[in-house]
Every structure is written in structure tokens, then in C-alpha cells.
């Protein structure tokens, strides 16, 4: 399935989950995701990641609601715990595959969703620069430590230095892109034209309709 379509479906369902107070629905979302993961053949580390990551925020909400909730708070505690899992397992369908599907996702954004190439390639650029940004933040802190100053998270100087790097880097990347012919607002050709299969639309619509039907009877 085209990753942008998949992303759209996932986002719509995730948005609905925010307003649905149902443990059952959350569990169904988790179960369906689990089945899809079985088909996708995840590595055991990815399974571990899916299982452990939501523990903290899930339990955090659960305990708070148990202790300090009002009304139907016990139910809500379970809703929140299952919801955190549902968000991550649902989202994982997109994010865990993103390494393989990144290029086609971005190409779809540009060619089919007609997002301005300026935004698409800004996104491409910063994605590729993420490891460098991580290193740069370490360097900023160490450079200051050499001067005997520790830049804490609440100090404006830390952010000022980070923004200074952002200013310099965005300038040189902009120059680099333009020197490779990038022209704002101009036509571009595409080596690979992205098409969205009719089947993708059918699957997306079926998935969304099925989810709505699930909500209809209020049987939870």
C-alpha cells in the first residue's frame, strides 16, 4: 500500500481513537495491528519495542486515573492504558516501515499530494541531517564545558547556539540546493512517477468504513 495512503488512514483512525472511550475498540486496533505485524515479519527487537515503550506513559495514566479519577474513572484508566498501546501499535505500521518506504512517501507527497517541493525537500534535508544535528548538540555543550560553562536545558544560551547552527546550516543547504538547480515554484520532472493503485484506494476506504461500522452499534 502506498505509504501516504496508509499514513492518512492511520491518522484518521488515531484521531478517532482520541475521542472513543472504549477498551474493546483499542484492543481490536491492537489485535489487527498485531496480525499485520505477523504478516510483516518483525524482528524480535521491534516486538520488544512495541511492547515496552508504552508501559511508562500507559501506567502513568492508569495509576493517576485510579487514584484521582472521578465518575467512570476505573473504566477510563483501562481506556488510557489500552489507548497508548493502540496509538503506538497503529503508528508502528507506518513508522516501522518508514526506512524502506521513505522515498516513496516523500515522492507521493510531492507528486500526488502536490505539496510544494520547497517543503518536501526541506523535510528530506533535515531527515538526512538528523545524525549531524545530534552530534552538533553534543558539540555545542562540550564546547561550552571547555569554557567552564554547562549549558542546561533552561539556559537561553543553549538554544541560542542551536539556533545559530540552524541559521548557518540552513543557509549553506539553501545555497547547495540552489547550486544544484533547485528553483522555488518551478516545474520539476520526476525519474519515477508515483501512481496510487486503485486497490490502495479500495483498501483504504474499506478499512475506514470497517472502523466506522465497528463504532456504530455502541456495543462496547
Amino acid at each position, binding site marked *: 500500500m502506498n505509504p501516504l495512503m496508509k499514513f492518512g488512514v492511520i*491518522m484518521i483512525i*488515531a*484521531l478517532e481513537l*482520541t475521542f472513543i*472511550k472504549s477498551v474493546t475498540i483499542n484492543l481490536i486496533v491492537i489485535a489487527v495491528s498485531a496480525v499485520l505485524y505477523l504478516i510483516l515479519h518483525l524482528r524480535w527487537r521491534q516486538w520488544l519495542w512495541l511492547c515496552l*515503550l508504552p508501559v*511508562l*506513559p500507559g*501506567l*502513568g*495514566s492508569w*495509576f*493517576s*486515573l485510579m*487514584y*484521582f*479519577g*472521578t*465518575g467512570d*474513572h476505573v473504566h*477510563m*484508566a483501562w*481506556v*488510557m492504558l489500552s*489507548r*497508548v498501546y493502540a*496509538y*503506538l501499535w497503529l*503508528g508502528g505500521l507506518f*513508522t516501522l516501515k*518508514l526506512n524502506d518506504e521513505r522515498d516513496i512517501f516523500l515522492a507521493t507527497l510531492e507528486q500526488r499530494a502536490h505539496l510544494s517541493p*520547497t*517543503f518536501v525537500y*526541506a*523535510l528530506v*534535508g*533535515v*531527515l538526512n*541531517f*538528523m545524525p549531524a*544535528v545530534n552530534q*552538533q*548538540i553534543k558539540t555545542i555543550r562540550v564546547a561550552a564545558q571547555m569554557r567552564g560553562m554547562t549549558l542546561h*536545558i*533552561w539556559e*537561553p544560551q543553549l*538554544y*541560542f547556539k*542551536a*539556533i*545559530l*547552527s*540552524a541559521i548557518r*546550516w*540552513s*543557509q549553506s543547504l*539553501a545555497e547547495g*540546493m540552489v547550486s544544484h538547480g533547485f528553483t*522555488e*515554484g518551478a516545474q520539476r520532472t520526476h525519474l519515477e512517477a508515483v501512481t496510487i493503485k486503485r486497490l490502495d484506494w479500495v483498501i483504504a476506504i474499506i478499512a475506514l468504513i470497517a472502523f466506522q461500522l465497528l463504532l456504530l452499534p455502541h456495543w462496547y
Partner: protein
Amino acid sequence: MQTVSDSKRRHWALRDVLLLAFVAVFIGFIFWVLGPVYNVLAAALTPMGLAPFANDLLLGGWMMAAPLASILIRQAGAGLLGELFAAAVEMLLGGQWGVATLLSGLVQGIASEAGFAVLAYKDWHWRGIFSSAVTGAVITFIWSLFRDGYASYHIGLLVALFLTRFVSLLFFGGVLVVAIQKLIEKAGVLRRD
């Protein structure tokens, strides 16, 4: 040959969009580094049922990309975009909330942006910044009533959580952003034509 002046002046210049994206990524990473601190804090508070305080205490930090993007680019929509970029980074780094991070990013972006919007996008200094901190706290809190199940809390806890979030936004999204802006302007490192 075709010239640039023939075409209309672009609203979102390449350099601005790149700056906004880089600022978001840098801020995203700074707070990603803080992730373990949040986890420890949240874990310590969990058995007492006070974990949401960890979230509300740091929310202002996670939302900093929005007001910073606004004051740097000075354009309607910059805050929203900045926060979306930051949320995308957090999601890709493997944030605990998965895709819900992007939804929250959208809400947080709108929440912060609203503060500049109510001043008709005319004030990019402390008035605009504090206004965005206030709208940021109020609007995201309404969102939390739904997403985080806050609606089911005792009113006492709700008030305490809101105050925590408000203080966090006033500090990170207000005081700190004003201080950062002062440094940037004093250093004269940002060219604005």
C-alpha cells in the same frame, strides 16, 4: 532566459523553510536528550498516580519549536509548521506516543500559533510570545481532556495539572523564548530583508 523577478515573490522562501525545519529538529533533539529525565521523573511519580505532572511540567519545552519558529520567520503558519516538523522528528526517533505525536504536534502548533494570531500577527516580541504561551496552555489542555483522559480527573488534580502546564509554558514558551530572542537580536546573526 527566465528570471526570478518575472515570477511572483514567494511567500515561503526556501531559506526560511529550511531554517524553520532545522530549528525544529535542533529543539526536538535537545528535548529528546532530556527523554531519560522525563522517564525517570514519570516513573517515580507513577506509583503515586502523579505521572501526568511530568508531562505537564515539560510540555512547554516540547512546544518551544512553535514560538521560536514564529519569531524567527515572522509569518502566519510558521509556528504550526515548526511544531509539526518537531513532532515528526520525535515520532521518527521513536517517541512513546507513536502517530499520536503528530496529532499532538498539530494541536500544539495551532495552540501556539493562536497567540500570535489574536494579535493579528503584528507583534513578534514579548507580547506575542506570552500571548502564544497562554493560548498554548489553554488549547492543549482542552486537547488533553480528551486524549489523555484528563476529563475523568478530580477537579483538584485538574487545577493543579493546569497550573503546572501554565507555568511550564510561561517559562519555556515565554520567559525563555523572550531571552533567546534578545540574544539573537543582540548578536545580529539573523538577516531579515
